[in-house]
C-alpha cells in the first residue's frame, strides 16, 4: 500500500464512521435500560456505548409484544415471495431467452412494458381487487402482487441468453425434451443468477412497506417492517425507547446478516434491480 493510499484510508474512515453512527446508536440504545433513556440518551460517549448495560429490552420483546410474531410473518412472506418469484421467473426467462415460438417478440415487449408500472400506480386497484376476493389479511395477499413484477424474468432471460447454444443442442440430439433440458441442464447452471434474484426478492419482501400497509390491517398479519412502523409513532410513552430500538435491531438483523454473508450477490442484486426496474 502506498503512503498516499493509507492517508486516504484514514481520511475516508472518518465519514465511514459517521455513516455508521446512526446504526450504531440504534444498537447501543437497544441495550440500555428504559428508565435511564427516559432521562438521557447520552449516558456514555453520547450514548454510543451501551453503558449502563441491559439485555432486558430483548427479553421483554420475546416475552410479550407481537414482534416475534411479526418477524415470523416476515419470514413466511419473504420466503414465499422468493420461491414464487424464482418459479415464475426462471421458467418464463428460459422460454423467452432460449425457445422459439410464435408471438415471442410481442410477449417479450408486453413484459418489458410492465417494468414501467410502479407499485404506487397499481396499489389502489389491487386493493379493491383483493377486497372483492376477500383476500386481505392473508399471506398470499402479501406475496402475489410482487410475483407479477417482470424484473426477475428479465434478469433470468439475460442470464440464459449468455449460456452457449451447444449444451442444449447436445441434449436435443439425445432426444431429451425441452422441459427436461430446462429442469436438468439449465436450472443447475442458473444457480448464481437465481441466487441474485432470490436475494433481491427477499430484501424487497422484507423491506416492503406500502402494500403491506394497505393490505394487512389486522395486527396478526403485520410484517415486521409494518409492525415497526406501527409502534414507532408513540415509542417513548408506551414501550420505552430501548424496546423500540430493540425491535429495530431485530427487524434489521436478517437483512444485515444476509448482506454480510452474501455481500457480492447483494451488490449484484441491487445493481441489477436498480438499473432495470
Amino acid at each position, binding site marked *: 500500500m502506498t503512503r498516499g493510499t493509507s492517508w486516504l484510508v484514514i481520511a475516508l474512515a472518518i465519514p465511514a464512521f459517521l455513516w455508521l453512527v*446512526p446504526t450504531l446508536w440504534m444498537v447501543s440504545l437497544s441495550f440500555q435500560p428504559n428508565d435511564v433513556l427516559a432521562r438521557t*440518551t447520552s449516558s456514555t460517549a*453520547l*450514548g454510543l456505548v451501551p453503558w449502563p448495560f441491559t439485555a432486558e429490552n430483548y427479553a421483554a420483546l420475546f416475552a410479550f409484544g407481537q414482534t416475534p410474531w411479526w418477524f415470523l410473518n416476515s419470514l413466511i412472506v419473504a420466503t414465499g415471495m422468493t420461491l414464487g418469484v424464482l418459479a415464475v421467473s426462471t421458467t418464463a426467462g428460459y422460454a423467452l431467452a432460449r425457445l422459439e415460438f410464435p408471438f415471442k417478440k410481442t410477449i417479450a415487449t408486453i413484459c418489458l412494458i410492465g417494468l414501467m*408500472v410502479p407499485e404506487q400506480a397499481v396499489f389502489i386497484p389491487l386493493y379493491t381487487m383483493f377486497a372483492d376476493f376477500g383476500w386481505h389479511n392473508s399471506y398470499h395477499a402479501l406475496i402475489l402482487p410482487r*410475483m407479477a413484477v417482470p424484473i426477475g424474468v428479465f434478469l433470468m432471460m439475460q442470464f440464459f441468453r449468455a449460456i452457449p447454444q451447444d449444451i442444449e443442442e447436445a441434449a436435443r440430439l439425445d432426444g431429451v425434451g425441452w422441459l427436461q433440458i430446462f429442469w436438468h441442464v439449465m436450472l443447475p447452471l442458473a444457480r448464481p443468477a437465481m441466487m441474485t434474484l432470490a436475494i433481491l426478492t427477499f430484501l424487497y419482501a422484507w423491506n416492503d412497506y406500502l402494500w403491506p400497509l394497505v393490505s394487512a390491517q389486522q395486527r396478526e398479519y403485520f410484517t415486521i417492517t409494518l409492525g415497526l412502523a406501527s409502534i414507532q409513532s408513540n*415509542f417513548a410513552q408506551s414501550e420505552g425507547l430501548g424496546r423500540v430500538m430493540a425491535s*429495530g435491531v431485530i427487524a434489521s438483523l436478517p437483512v444485515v446478516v444476509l448482506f454480510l454473508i452474501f455481500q457480492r450477490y447483494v451488490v449484484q442484486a*441491487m*445493481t441489477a434491480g436498480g438499473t432495470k426496474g
Partner: protein
Amino acid sequence: MPLRPKIGRSLSQAQAAYALLLPFLAVYALFLIYPFFRGVWISLHDWNLLEVAFNPAAKEYVGLRNYERVMWGKDIEWSLFAAPLIQLAGLAALAGAAFTGWTGRLSRPTALALGVVAALVVLIAGLHPGEEGRWYDRRFWPTVGNTLVFVGLAVPGVTLSALVLAAALNRESRAMAALRTLFFLSQVLSVTVVTLIWQIMFSPRQGLIANITELFGGTPINWLTDAQFAMAAIVIATIWWSLGIALILFLAGLQDISKDLYEAAALDHCTGVRAFRHITLPNLKRTITLVVILQIILHFQVFGQSHLMTQGGPNDSTQVLVRYIYQTGFRDSDLGRASAMAVFLFVVMGAFSVIQFIVGRGKSQ
C-alpha cells in the same frame, strides 16, 4: 414416473415455451396488467371506497372530472410571470437542451427529454388562478412541488457524495473493501428502520444531534416540526439510506475506465482532482446520467420517510405525492380522485422510465 418424461418429450418447442411462460403470464396479467387498466377505469368514476365496498353499484361514471378536480380549478389563467423563478429556470434549461442537443454535447434523445421536461415546467408553473378563481384542489400542485423539491435535493445530494466517495474508494485493498461495506450497509435497512433511527436522531429532546448541539452550547433545532428544517431532515435521512446503490453503480462505472488513461495523464502531471475532472468525469458521463434518472424514479415515489417522520407536516411542507394518494384513497375513501393522481404519477414516472430505457440501451451498444 414413466409418464412425465414422456409428456415432456412429446411437447413441441412452442408448446414447451407456452407451458413455461404460462405461470408468469397468468400472475402478470392478473396482478399487474389488469390492475393497471382497472386503476384507469376507477379514475373515471366517482368511487367511494366504503360505499362501493357495501354496494358495488354505488359508483358513478364521471369521465375526466376527477382529473379536473385534482389538477384544474376555476378561472385558471396562464402567464409567464406566475412563478418567475421556476419558469426562468425552465426556460434556461430549455435553451440549454436546445444548445447542447444542437452542438452534440448531449445525445439527441437526452437533449430532447430534457427539453420536454423543461417546457412542461415552464407551462405548468405558469398556470395560476385568476382574480375570482381558485384551484379545485389546493393541495395537489403544492404536493407535486414538494415532491420535486425532495427529488431536487436528494438526487444531487446522493449523486455528488456517491461520486466523490466512489472516486476515492476505487482502489484494490482490504481496507477500501471494508469501507465500501460500511457505506453500503444502511442501504439494506427497511424504510421503517431508517425512519425509526432518524426520528430519534433528530429529536430535540433525546436526539444525538441535539445532544451534540448542547455539548457545544447551542440550542437544539426542532428538525421534524419546524417547517424550515423538516424537508432537510427527511432529505438527510434519505441520502444516508440510499447512497449505497449509487456508490456501487459508480464503482462499476469506474472499473470500466482504462488504467492506461490515468497513467498517460500522470505523465502530463494530471493527477488527483485534475485527473478526476478531465478523465473520470467525461468517461463516467453515461453512468452519471443513468444514476440520476434512476434516483429520480426512485425518489419521486418517496412515501415512508414523509409518512413516518413528519406525517407530511408541518403545514404540509413535507407532503409528497404518494402520501397524498394514500391519504385520499384510504383516509378520505375517495378512490376515484386518488386513482387520477396515481395515473398522473404513472405518466411522470413512465416518461422517466422511457428515458432510462433509451440511455440504458445506449450503454449496452
